[in-house]
């Protein structure tokens, strides 16, 4: 490899990553639920495991969309074995629906708490436990110090954390590795067929440390994410009736 300026910079960037908390644990543990072009956005082209990812969901609809996206990721992470913990203070998640995302719902332990403070404490404890594939927490507000604590906990254990932030007021501060926003998109069905089609989402990667943020449109089909290449315009008012 010629020692051009660009190469040196790329190499240095790779050297910096471990110093910032990205351990080489991710090597050999790559998880691909069908990233496709999204993969280019991540540092080194690998989805950062052993880090905490933040999802913004202002309303219940976004909460459901983000939940679906995370469930797809979790399914790939757990790969039919392994366990995960779902911590929340107001959980509406319906366990049997997880099966549709490739997760055995009995492999998830739900922790339902009253106070946000307890949620953060339980998250930290769970993130320290190396036996878990992932930890999902539903939170409203979180302080910068708490963010840092969670990040430090995962750097030790290599567990991946997901934080769903419901209608949070203060979204500026964050020590998390990435910030996402998932919104629903109208589904597509085969011409002439009834139904509502597969779940479709607009995935906005608002921020990612050492990566390139971007926006993609994907669909959850046959247990994988699939990019929608030519998104056809949805004609409003074209209601289909079934019965």
């Amino acid at each position: 490899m010629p020692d051009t300026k660009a190469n040196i910079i790329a190499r240095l960037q790779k050297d910096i990553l471990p110093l910032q908390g990205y351990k080489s644990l991710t090597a050999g543990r790559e998880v691909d639920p069908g990233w496709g072009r999204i993969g280019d956005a991540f540092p080194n082209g690998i989805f950062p495991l052993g880090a905490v990812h933040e999802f913004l969901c202002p309303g219940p609809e976004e909460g459901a969309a983000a939940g679906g996206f995370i469930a797809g990721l979790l399914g790939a992470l757990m790969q039919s074995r392994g366990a995960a913990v779902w911590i929340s203070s107001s959980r509406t998640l319906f366990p049997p629906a997880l099966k549709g995302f490739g997760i055995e719902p009995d492999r998830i332990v739900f922790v339902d708490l009253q106070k946000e403070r307890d949620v953060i404490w339980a998250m930290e404890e769970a993130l320290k436990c190396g036996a878990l594939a992932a930890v999902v927490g539903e939170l409203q507000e979180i302080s910068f110090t708490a963010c840092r604590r969670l990040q430090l906990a995962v750097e030790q254990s290599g567990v991946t954390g997901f934080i769903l932030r419901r209608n949070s007021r203060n979204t500026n501060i964050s020590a998390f590795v990435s910030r996402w926003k998932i919104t629903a998109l109208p589904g597509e069905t085969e011409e002439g067929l009834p139904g509502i089609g597969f779940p479709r989402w607009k995935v906005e990667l608002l921020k990612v440390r050492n990566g390139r943020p971007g926006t993609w449109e994907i669909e959850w089909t046959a247990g994988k994410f699939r990019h929608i290449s030519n998104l056809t315009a949805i004609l409003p008012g074209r209601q289909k009736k079934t019965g």
Partner: protein
Amino acid sequence: MQKRFVAICFRHLTTDWFTRRRPALRHLPFILSAPVHGRMLVTAANALAQAEGIAPGMPVADARAILPGLEVLDDQAGLSARLLKNFARWFIRYTPIATMDPPDGILLDSTGCAHLWGGDKAYITVIIKRLGAFGYDAGAAMADTIGAAWAMARFAGEPSVIESGKHLQALLALPPEALRIETGMAEQLQKLGLRRTGDLMGIHRPALRRRFGQQLLQRLDQALGREEELIVPVQQAATYRERLPCLEPIVTATGIEIALQRLLETLCGRLQQEQKGLRSALFTCYRVDGKTVETGIGTNRPSHRTAHLFKLFEPKLSAIEPALGVELFELEAPVVEGLSPLQEKLWEGSGGMEDNRLAELMDRLTCRLGAHTIHRYMPCEHHWPERSFRLATSLCEKPLGPWRTDRPRPLRLLSKPELIEVAAPVPDYPPMLFRYKGRLHQINKADGPERIEREWWLEEGEYRDYYQVEDVEGQRYWVFRAGDYAEKKSIQWFLCGFFA
């Protein structure tokens, strides 16, 4: 090993307790009184009052006639029993087997305990000294049999130790009351001129039985050790219990931590040898002031890992108030289960539900947040969505059947369906638009209905027709209509979930 018993007799149990609470009474003659058959009787008198000739059982008026300035206090019902019970518990620091001996005594089985205090004499002296420091006037004696110890504690005058095998000689000179027999029988014996126990021993046994019944012979045999007598301890000896007495009272948090660490190490070592693990543990601190403080933990899976168990106890230690100091620590494992060491190695690091690290995480969460916060679900054979899963009973439970995926189910289900306003064509078409929380949703695509009948053997009510609907923005909802369209009946629609 030769059994050794200690009998302790409180000469003024209740009055000493009153004096302890009101030190001003120390130099006053006073009595306790209670109404019996409509008149006030003396139930207890302190040493000063007894020296004046006042005895329990005498009417209060007579006692007042003897000593006009006599202080009369109301007795409390059940006081002596309560005090004795507390004392029997308190004596755990001298022997694991202690019991009450109503109305005024305590019995200890001190077999194999006395050498820890430097011999029998020192053991008795320490006990009497401690009781004296509390303000209780007590007599004590140690002997091979309960009967002999009981007699010597009451009739010897000063704390005495009867050497092993010498109890017969010690008993010979005592009056017959020393045999723990009824007052009436003792008086009868005195009248007959049998003023010492020695006199009884020379009499032909059938003659004694004919005259006084079996009880006298039994008491005699018990005192002489011919018949074995058992005592039932107030605290049952637990199989997995470790004790740590301290030379100096412990007052610091570090001290308590060290004590717990040591106890855990001993207990876990024992459990490991026996291939067992504890499911719950109780840590008890006996304080100098006679109170006890205890705290407990539970685990999801049997464990004998000292580090893990210590971590569970750690947040609870700060709640322990040592006050003037803790002189005895005790760790007990009431629930113990078998633990196979082979499997533990096998599952280590597998990252599944069987992983020990997961069980330990659950223990930490349970200890701080309570067991009710942790849920795990199993599939359940019901069509009704809210009943299609049930709580798992343990972390290791395996699902009996598969999770169903044949029908679409929303990722988020509201705990209670919310009423929505809907415009829908009759009879069974999906809604065209609906209003939820003040916002109007224009429906673009829909699927349904999926009719789910009530499980009539469980509850009454109308069936539900569920529709999946998608609004123009692409947000997907699960809505249902309760029941059928019928005349003069308003139809209600509900939103019950959100699809991903």
